């Protein structure tokens, strides 16, 4: 089996195909700290792509509550348990990836969910509340925290779905690294669904073939960010073309968050897919839990993120999130503003680093009304 380099686990690993990087790679950063799980992203996606017969259970984008929420049911803990202990030495993963742990007759370790596993996308939502006055009634491992995890297809550099399809019906686009299922070649074998560790492949029981997140490629081709990004009312998302760490561009917002400030981390890097969706981890969650999800760089990422108010550039990129529906290729912070530019260097947007505050009297004499506080 060919060996490829996966920078997220800082070592070479086995993969069924030799490395074939696209000309540029679709990527995104989601700031978990800003998400309120309103599911506007979920519905924007659903309305755009999965309103058909047979797509009822499909959420190419979903937001689940951690630690107890999961969609499909227990997608993460089931695989983590199958994979066994996952060990790191520094930034290097010393355990097995899902390709290295593949059982006989399969390309990757995995399981096939059943229909009932897709039946409760909101299971565990908002569970684990704060300890009430006088202490908790019973003791559980996670006492006072939960957070929301926003999930779409990771458009992986080394996709397990693509590797598992015996018909090569799944392909990674050369021009943008978006991973798609060819709807004319798919025969509904569900090998991809079994192999995808993030369970972002959906079998359609009416068309009897499988479907997945298409990264809103018709929008990306027009220089627009996907629907889930631009509809986010919390402005937690930003898309960009990501580079490998050695070619990181400090003016590229996604490169800046992932490679320069290193505040955005891959989800379950130990699976070995070199994912392209990155998360700014929640700052209030025990890092022991987060290290399992986002790898050994979590503590440093949170430390850097907490200092964002004193870091104009980091603050600038965070302010650019959700500020335009256009695809931001470069950014620059000048004075009190952050500027976003397209690939030709045209200014797309400018955002103040600090939102201005206007104080007005409660009673408006001109219109004879009382005002409410708004932000």
């Amino acid at each position, binding site marked *: 089996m060919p060996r490829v380099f996966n920078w997220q686990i800082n070592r070479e690993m086995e993969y069924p195909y030799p490395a074939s990087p696209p000309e540029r790679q679709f990527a995104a950063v989601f700031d978990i700290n800003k998400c309120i799980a309103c599911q506007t992203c979920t519905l924007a996606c659903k*309305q755009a*792509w999965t309103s058909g*017969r*047979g797509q009822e259970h499909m959420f190419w984008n979903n937001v689940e509550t951690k630690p107890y929420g999961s969609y499909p049911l227990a997608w993460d803990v089931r695989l983590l348990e199958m994979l066994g202990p996952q060990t790191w030495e520094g930034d290097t993963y010393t355990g097995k990836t899902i390709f290295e742990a593949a059982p006989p007759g399969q390309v990757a370790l995995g399981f096939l969910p059943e*229909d009932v596993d897709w039946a409760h996308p909101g299971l565990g939502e908002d569970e684990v509340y704060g300890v009430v006055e006088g202490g908790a009634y019973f003791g559980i491992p996670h006492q006072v925290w939960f957070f929301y995890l926003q999930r779409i297809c990771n458009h992986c550099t080394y996709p397990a779905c693509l590797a598992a399809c*015996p018909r090569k019906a799944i392909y990674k686009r050369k021009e943008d690294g978006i991973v798609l299922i060819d709807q*004319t070649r798919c025969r509904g*074998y569900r090998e991809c669904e079994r192999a995808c560790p993030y369970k972002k492949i959906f079998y359609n029981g009416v*068309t009897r073939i499988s479907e997945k997140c298409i990264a809103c490629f018709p929008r990306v081709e027009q220089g627009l960010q996907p629907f889930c990004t631009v509809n986010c009312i919390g402005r937690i998302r930003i898309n960009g073309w990501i580079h490998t760490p050695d070619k990181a561009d400090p003016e590229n917002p996604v490169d800046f968050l992932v490679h320069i400030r290193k505040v955005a981390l891959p989800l379950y890097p130990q699976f070995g897919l070199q994912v392209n969706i990155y998360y700014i981890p929640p700052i209030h969650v025990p890092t022991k839990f987060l290290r399992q999800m986002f790898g050994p760089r979590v503590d440093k990422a949170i430390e850097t993120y907490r200092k964002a108010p004193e870091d104009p550039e980091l603050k600038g990129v965070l302010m650019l999130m959700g500020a335009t529906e256009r695809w931001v290729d470069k950014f620059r912070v000048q004075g009190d503003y952050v500027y976003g530019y397209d690939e030709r260097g045209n200014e797309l947007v400018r955002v103040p680093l600090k939102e201005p505050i206007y104080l007005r009297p409660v009673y408006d004499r001109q219109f004879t009304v009382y005002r409410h506080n708004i932000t």
Partner: protein
Amino acid sequence: MRWLTLAAIAALAVFLAGQRVVLAQQPTEIVSVLRPGPLPVTDPFDPAWDEAPAVDVPLGPQAMTIPSLLKLSVPTVRVRSLNNGDQIALLLEWADDTRDDLTVADQQFRDAAAIQFPVGQELPNICMGAAGQLVNIWHWKADWQRDIDQGFQELVNQYPNFFKDFYPGGVTGTPPFTYPTDFDRPEARQFQVGWAVGNPFSVPQRPSPVEDLKAIGFGSLTHKDRQEVGGRGVWRDGRWRVIFTRKLAAPDSESADLRRDQVPVAFAVWNGANQEVGARKQLSGFYTLRIQGQERILGLPRNLVGWLAAGFIGVLAVVVVTLRFLRRRAAAGI
């Protein structure tokens, strides 16, 4: 790496040589009995099938490529064949405790069976064919059979209480809607992507339960432009009986021409309850299908030899009559 490749090729050669030896030791011939008149192509339990000798073909788990089948679930398939000089039919019969003919839920996989013929004269030494060694595959699917017998199967067939109050874009009818009739307008199909692009699994109209396919190696299986194979499968008392039928003559260059007295043929069976699909299957080695009525004389088809002989006699008669006529005119001194 090169040594590894060479070793793999050597191992494969040894494996294939072994296969040939094993195949040579067991009955490897299936006779397609010539039976003039209509063939019993709609009823797999028609007594006419008893006129064809049954051959029990042993199956083995597919382990040449990944994904593979680790545990055999159908050890043999019983094969019979009849033909009437124009059309051929094969009957495959195997034991299966469960009838798996719905593929609506994630965990549902169909029962299925397939017959493979090489298209050219050369016998492909690997299943699914190889570059330059096209194979023609007839693939019967239990869910396609149910679509034909009971109408296109979808959500309500798996979830009887399914209800949905709204679909966007041109869907007609009232909730919970009828599929596929309420989704017949092109704009209503914008979310039924497989149907919109004509994927044969998704298109609700089913002309046949048997898909006519071609392949040139692992992963290359492709739906043919022309679909010429018919058939019917019935599950009764823990056994599937499935008929495959087509004209002996190849309808196109991608199909096996069966106007030959000996044709290599291989079989595969899938057990849906064991989540078998695609390469997860059990299959046979190549057998010889001996087709009665297609015997050759001096290497030519029997009926072609007959026509040639008739033509030769006709030409000879014309020549003889002409010569006599000329000779008579010469004798008369004209």
